[in-house]
Each structure stands twice: as structure tokens, then as C-alpha cells.
């Protein structure tokens, strides 16, 4: 796996790079701003770009805009946004188009090395990795919408399953997180799909996209 990173904070950039190298993930180039990201993506054709939201020169949402631009220029490029805050608007923009290979995590999750590396590999493989806070925002917004009443039909365990699915986790990972058997997870998943009236799918990734499409739909 070939990774590029765009992060202006030298300490954090060095930290992420060192951590990934220790896990035998190759960081082929580093950038400090949006322009730099587009340059290293064009030059190295990486599988994954790890991007901070706030980058010079504006220190606003440069990273999100550069990541979306990089994906347009290199279709199939996986993008993992690392940020110190969760902003639902950015989530919606990243997920727009409904393609996989998208991640949005809070930076402190990097400290959970195993979880982070798992997320990095998942996103690079075209999967999804959304921070639990991102998912909580999505669920809250959806629950507030007109037909969000459906979410109330879910049992607490089913809601937990829905959230973990939206984070992009596989059944096995969900089973580990909830400390239940894979069989129990499968049952929760099929109940969630039935209650929310979603098209069922055996494919993990398509399933996540269906859940996210449901959470993002407005009205």
C-alpha cells in the first residue's frame, strides 16, 4: 500500500508517518498544504491520501477541498480525512457520489494503533471508516428529519449495530466490539435492514453504503 500524507503540523505528521512505518505501511510522500497534496498525488499515484482538514494558507477547509479535487483527478484514490473536530457538512461532501474509499476520523483515534491501522487498510481497499462521532452526528440529524421516526423502531442493540455498520466495520469487527457472536450480529443486521426498509446485500461494502445513504438522505 502506498500512502501520501498532507498535514501542516510537523509533530503530528512525523507521528503518523512513524506509526504507519512501524506497521509496515509505506508513506511515499508528505505534503504541507492543499497544493502540495495535489502535487504528490499526481507525482506518486498513491492508493491512499491521509489529509488534515485545516491546511495553509487559509487554515479553514483546504484539506477537504484538496482531497475532493484529488479524487476527481485520480478516480479510485482513497481518502482518509483526519481532523481535530467533526463537521457534518464535510462528511456529506466526502460521501457525496456514494463511492467508497472514504474515511473521516478524529485525530486522537490514531492513538488506538490497531483500530487506526485497520481503518487505514479498510479505506485503502475501497471501504469506509467514519468516526463514531461522525456517525452520531449523522444518526442525530437523520433522527431529527421527518421520517426519522423509523430509527425509533430499532432496539438499543440494533441501533448500536447500525452505528458500527455506519463506521464501516465488518460483521466480525462489529461482533468483537459488541462482544457477541457473529450469528447475533447477522440477526441484528437483518433486523436493521428490514425495519429501515433498506435493500439487503451480502457485500459488506455495499451494505455500508446503503446505511450511509439512508442516514444522509434528507426529508
Amino acid at each position: 500500500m502506498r500512502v501520501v500524507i498532507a498535514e501542516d503540523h510537523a509533530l503530528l505528521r512525523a507521528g503518523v508517518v512513524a506509526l504507519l512505518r512501524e506497521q509496515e505501511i509505506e508513506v511515499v510522500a508528505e505534503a504541507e498544504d492543499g497544493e502540495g497534496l495535489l502535487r504528490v498525488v499526481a507525482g506518486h499515484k498513491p492508493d491512499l491520501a491521509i489529509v488534515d482538514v485545516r491546511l495553509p494558507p487559509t487554515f479553514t477547509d483546504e484539506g477537504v477541498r484538496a482531497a475532493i479535487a484529488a479524487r476527481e483527478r485520480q478516480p479510485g484514490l482513497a481518502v482518509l480525512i483526519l481532523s481535530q473536530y467533526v463537521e457534518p457538512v464535510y462528511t456529506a461532501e466526502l460521501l457525496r457520489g456514494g463511492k467508497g474509499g472514504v474515511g473521516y476520523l478524529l485525530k486522537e483515534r490514531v492513538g488506538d494503533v490497531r483500530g487506526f491501522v485497520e481503518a487505514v487498510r479498510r479505506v485503502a481497499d475501497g471501504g469506509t471508516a467514519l468516526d463514531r462521532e461522525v456517525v452520531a452526528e449523522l444518526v442525530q440529524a437523520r433522527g431529527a428529519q421527518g421520517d426519522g421516526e423509523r430509527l425509533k423502531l430499532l432496539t438499543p442493540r440494533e441501533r448500536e449495530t447500525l452505528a458500527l455498520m455506519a463506521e464501516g466495520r465488518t460483521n466480525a469487527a462489529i461482533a468483537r466490539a459488541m462482544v457477541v457472536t457473529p450469528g447475533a450480529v447477522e440477526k441484528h443486521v437483518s433486523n436493521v435492514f428490514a425495519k429501515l426498509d433498506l435493500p439487503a446485500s451480502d457485500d459488506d461494502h455495499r451494505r455500508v453504503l446503503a446505511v450511509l445513504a439512508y442516514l444522509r438522505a434528507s426529508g
Partner: protein
Amino acid sequence: MSGGAVQSRPADGGARAASLALALSAIAGLACTIAWGATGGLFWPMWVWLGLATALALLASRGRFAHAAPGPQRRLALHAEVTAVLAANVLLAWLFGGAGAFWPIWVWLGLGVALALHALLVYRDEPPRERQLAERVAVLTRTRRGALDVQAAELRRIERDLHDGAQARLVALSMQLGRAEARVDDRPEVAALLRDARAEASAAIAELRDLARGIAPPVLADRGVAAAVEALAQRSSAQVTVDARLPHRLPPVVETAAYFVVAEALTNVAKHARGASARVTLHEQGGRLRVEVADDGPGGANAAGSGLEGLRARVAALDGALALDSPPGGPTVVRAELPCAS
């Protein structure tokens, strides 16, 4: 200048001179009256009395203004007193002369015109109190707005500093703890300690994030009030449409105030007008930002009961206005107008 000479004389000296003048006038008047008593005929001493009284009145006027602040205002006041004395003088002269055709009117007219011209000159040169106050108000408005702008900019700077400073360092710390944790898999008790330390760091990071969000939500700082209001609309339980026409970013203090007005209004819609839809309009024209949140709910909202009261002070501090219009039966409209020329 005579005024200056009068003022420089000691006060008791002035009073002594006035008493002396009064005494001399009384003696002179008395002498004339005695002289008339000896000769008889028409009562001519009344003219002497009139002349002396006029002179004394003028002297008294000058004395009274001796201690007023020198300048055009004092000269004008003195002029007004002299005019009054002379006006009284000609009236008495007319009475003494047998009260025939009322000729003093012409004298008064002349005196009045002279006084009016003098006043015109003085007030053209010297700004009247109203104008001074208007200028003062303009200065205070400007400086208050400046102070608020500085405060808003400072808050955003603190948010930025937290983000790039303490928060980033804690994130780096959390990463290092994680890396250490991954290396001590064979020593579970050390790994547990490191995991606890990382949890503490995460809690601190979360607290700093909440603090920064309370100052201004990131999207407001990053993208401005139109994007932040769109984000509010997406999260609201009401059906909200947003019409934002803002060609450029507004001063931070205005953005924040407008954002919190819309946030509060939409919270009220969700709370008190279940199932209602709302329309948010942000429109800037001629250096004023107009914010309007209208819903088709049942109306009858009470400004005092809503959180809008707290926002009124915030809006007023910017010389803006906040109004709630909510007749029974609806619709409810919250309007804020904020000057936003930077």
C-alpha cells in the same frame, strides 16, 4: 481687550469699584434732584436718573460676566445683557417723553438684528452642544464596535491556538502513547497503564474541542455564516430552507451574532412548532445584514420566554435590532438587522 482686564482684576476690587460707582451715582442723582428742587420747572432730573441707572446696569452686567469662561460664548451673553438694558432704557425714555408714537420698536429692531447677527457668527464657528454630542456618539459607536471586533478576533485566535497548540500536542502525545502501547504487547499491565493514559489524553482533547465549539462552530470559522446556517438547517428537525445571498465573508462578530440568532430561532421552531417548516433568509445590502427566520407554526410566541431575549443584548451591542413577530395563528418571524460594514 476690556474683558481680559476686568477678569485679571481681583474679585473684591471689582466689588469695591461697583459700590463706589453706586455711591457716586446716588450722590450725583441726589444733587440733581436738590438742584431741581431749588429751581423748579419740568422734572428734568429723571433723565439724569435714567442715564445713571443705565450706566450702573451696564457696569453690573460686565461685572457678572467677569468670571465666566472667556470666549465667544461669553461675549455673546454680555451682548445679550447689554441689549436688554438698552431695550429697557429706550422703553423708559419713551414713557418719560410722554408715551407718544411707539418709536422704541425701531431701536429694538436694530438691537435685535445686531444680537442675531452676533449669535449667528458665534454658532457658525463654535459647534453647538448637540453637534458635540453627535460627534461623541459617533466616536463611541466606532470604538465600541472596534472593541467588539477585537474581542471576536481574539476569540477566534484562541480557538485557532487551542487547535494548533494544546490540542495538537495532546494528539501527538496520544499517538506516542499508542505506539508505546503497541510495543509492549507482552506486558499487559504496562499496556493497560498506557491505555489509561491515552484515555486521559482523549478526554482532555474532547474537552478542548467542546470549548472551541462553544466559541464558534468550526464550519462558521472555516466557511462563514451561510455555510454554518446550512449546517444548522440540515441538523434541524424542522424542514428548513435557506436563502443566503452573501457575496463575501462578514466581520467575525457579525457572523457569530447572526449564527446564534438563527440557531436560537430554529431551536424554538423545533421546540414550539412541531411539524412546522421554516425559511431562513440572510441578505446583505448597503452595509446591513438582514437575518430572517420565518416558520408556519401556530404563532403566539413570547419574546420574553424564548432564548431570544439573551441574544437581544448581543445584537444591540452591534447597534443592530432584533424583533419577534408572532401573532396567534402564526406565522412567527424573527428578524435581526446588523450593521456589517467592516
